[in-house]
């Protein structure tokens, strides 16, 4: 894909790609309402419930924000799940129930995220290792190091830190407001900074971006750092929510594959260069709504899996089918 092809042919009129995530989200919402009404459970249509649905997938949402950045530069990160476990355990062990250790613990988790991100970025952009393999390898390394030392819940999160997951401001959970703030921040970075536009350029066509004078390696490394730091924050959130960290929480939540699925359902293209943060947020909401629909309708958990698999493919097909490119 060259850059020229990416820019829309005309500025006016209906742009499908821009609205597609909203169409999908609207569809999911309509299905939710219909299912709630059809099963005679109108109590699921209250404001409280809406908040509960929004709050279902905070950890997934935070991870997906980061994943959006790496996918935009045509990379990918499979190490987020292990990193989430590692940072959750690290934070909970450092805090160990003491409120005084909250700041060091948060810093330690973020630094760990940063280090993993830099390493991923360097392996991908300097050693030219395919990002799938690089981050899969990294995932194995993190998980191995982690489970060498911890095999169960370790440490304890003090009550003061549980505010992150359980606190509320008015009717809104703090974590939800945090995610919204994070999304706005990501949007500003992508929309208004040079780094943001460079990212789209690198993802669209790395060679062309390099010729245009963009330091592509640096952009890729930075995207990976953002992704890993987001995963670290997700780890902190889960530690706060579960009151402790365990070496399996990341892999049990399948945050690696689910975050990728959320990003692509939100319309960001795996090949890089196209998409954005609001699509990802829509993708996260679609996931939460689907989950809730399954719960309300009492869908058997095996059928749930089948439907989820089909929905992921169908949602991506919804965007991709109009493309004329050859994909592999």
């Amino acid at each position, binding site marked *: 894909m060259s850059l020229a092809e990416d820019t829309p042919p005309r500025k006016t009129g209906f742009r499908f790609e821009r609205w597609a995530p909203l169409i999908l989200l609207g569809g999911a919402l309509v299905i939710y309402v219909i299912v709630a009404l059809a099963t005679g*459970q109108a*109590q*699921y249509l*209250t404001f*409280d*419930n809406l*908040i*509960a*649905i929004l*709050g*279902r*997938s905070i*950890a997934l949402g935070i991870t997906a924000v980061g994943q959006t950045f790496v996918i935009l530069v045509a990379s990918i990160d499979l190490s987020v799940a292990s990193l989430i476990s*590692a940072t959750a*355990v*690290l934070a909970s*062990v*450092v805090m*160990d129930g003491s409120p005084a250790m909250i700041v060091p613990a948060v810093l*330690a988790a973020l630094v*760990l995220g940063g*280090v*993993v991100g830099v*390493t991923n970025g360097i392996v991908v952009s300097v050693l030219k290792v395919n990002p799938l393999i690089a981050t899969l390898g990294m995932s194995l*390394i*993190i998980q191995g*190091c*982690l*489970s*060498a*030392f*911890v*095999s*169960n*819940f*370790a*440490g*304890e999160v003090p009550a003061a830190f*549980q505010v992150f997951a*359980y606190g509320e401001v008015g009717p809104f959970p703090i974590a939800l407001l945090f995610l919204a703030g994070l999304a706005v921040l990501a949007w500003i970075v992508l929309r208004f900074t040079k780094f943001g536009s460079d990212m789209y350029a690198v993802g669209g066509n790395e060679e062309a971006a390099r010729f245009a004078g963009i330091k592509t390696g640096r952009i890729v490394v930075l995207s990976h750092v953002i992704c890993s730091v987001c995963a670290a924050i997700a780890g902190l959130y*889960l530690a706060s*929510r*579960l*009151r*402790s960290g*365990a*070496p*399996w*929480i990341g892999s*049990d*939540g*399948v945050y690696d594959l689910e975050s990728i699925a959320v990003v692509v359902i939100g319309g960001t293209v795996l090949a890089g260069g196209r998409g954005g943060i609001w699509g990802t947020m829509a993708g996260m909401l679609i996931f939460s709504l689907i*989950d*809730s629909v399954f*719960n309300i309708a*009492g869908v058997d*958990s*095996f059928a*749930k899996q089948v439907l989820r698999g089909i929905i992921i493919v169908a949602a991506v097909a919804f965007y991709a089918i109009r493309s004329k490119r050859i994909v592999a």
Partner: protein
Amino acid sequence: MKHILMATGALALSLAPLHAQNFDDPEEFAKQQEQLAAEPMGPADQPWLQHIGDAMVETADLGVEAPATVCFSNAGVNNPWRVVGYTNMTEEVANHESIGEFIHVDAEGSDDKQIADIDDLLAGGDCDVMIVSPNTTAALTPAVERACEAMPVIVFDRGVNTDCPVTFVHPVGGYGFGIQGAEFIADNVDEGGNVLMLRILPGVDVLETRYSAGRRILDEAGLNIVGAEFTDGDNAKTKSIVEDYLMRGEIDAVWMDAGATAVAAIEAFEDSGYEIPVFVGEDQQDFLRKWQDEGLTAIAPTYPTFQWRTAVIAAAHVIEGEAVPGPEWVLPQPAITQDNLDEYVNPAMPPLHYAMCGCEDMANYPGAWGGN
């Protein structure tokens, strides 16, 4: 990079033992050993109604009226044990008129999702009583505490770190399971004999306690533990591990912390041309059948799936205002031995069916459990 990770890990290592749950607790070990020997109260032919110890909890003042909606937050149905248990549960629900509606939400093995599920049920589920089978003890405690504020809660299988639920239904426990198997080996293998211990994975509370109890007894009996290996519950891996051990030396007994891969381990002996040694399995049909067919010297400790029935019965008692055993409803944990093996083997049932289901007298048996 590696250094930093290692340093981080080392930090965790230095701190973790201070906080890790104690899986080798002599007091708990002694308590469960006693409970195994205790005579349970209640009808002997219906172990799912029996309880060890006589403490009861009154429920008349909980203010639930029949017919009530019972909501069940399930950790998952991601293994055959949970599948059998969940079938027991749904069949048991049909026995109680006081249960109007039964809502099931499945967390698919994720703590985070189970917390969200419980919050969803509290926000809009119209539940009157909640049953929770926690995915992990520590993580689900806050969610269960919130549920307790809204309605009576019954917890089973794994516990939570709070005494707010009406009762916590569980069999004797992991130490008991470990004790039964290891004592059988100690009785049937001469001192100095080689024992291979096969474990599923580290860190899971119910499995760690089985191992620590088993190890304690095998060590005390002077047996030689040639290895303790993790199989991930994977048949192919189990078979490979046992084959490798057989290439290195003789094995007189195999102890397992869960029987799902027992048949694969037995086949490793068969395929390599060795006698099948003393075996500890579990109550899955494939193992019981193999045991019967080959005339093994074996035992099958159980972690009975009938506790899934008991949880529903406890909920029904709460709705009806009857007293229930509590704050812990300790169920018996019978082992299948040579003496009662024939009662439990049933070729009509699927290979991964757990025989200690207490479900033989239920209306849709065996069809609902996949039997012919």
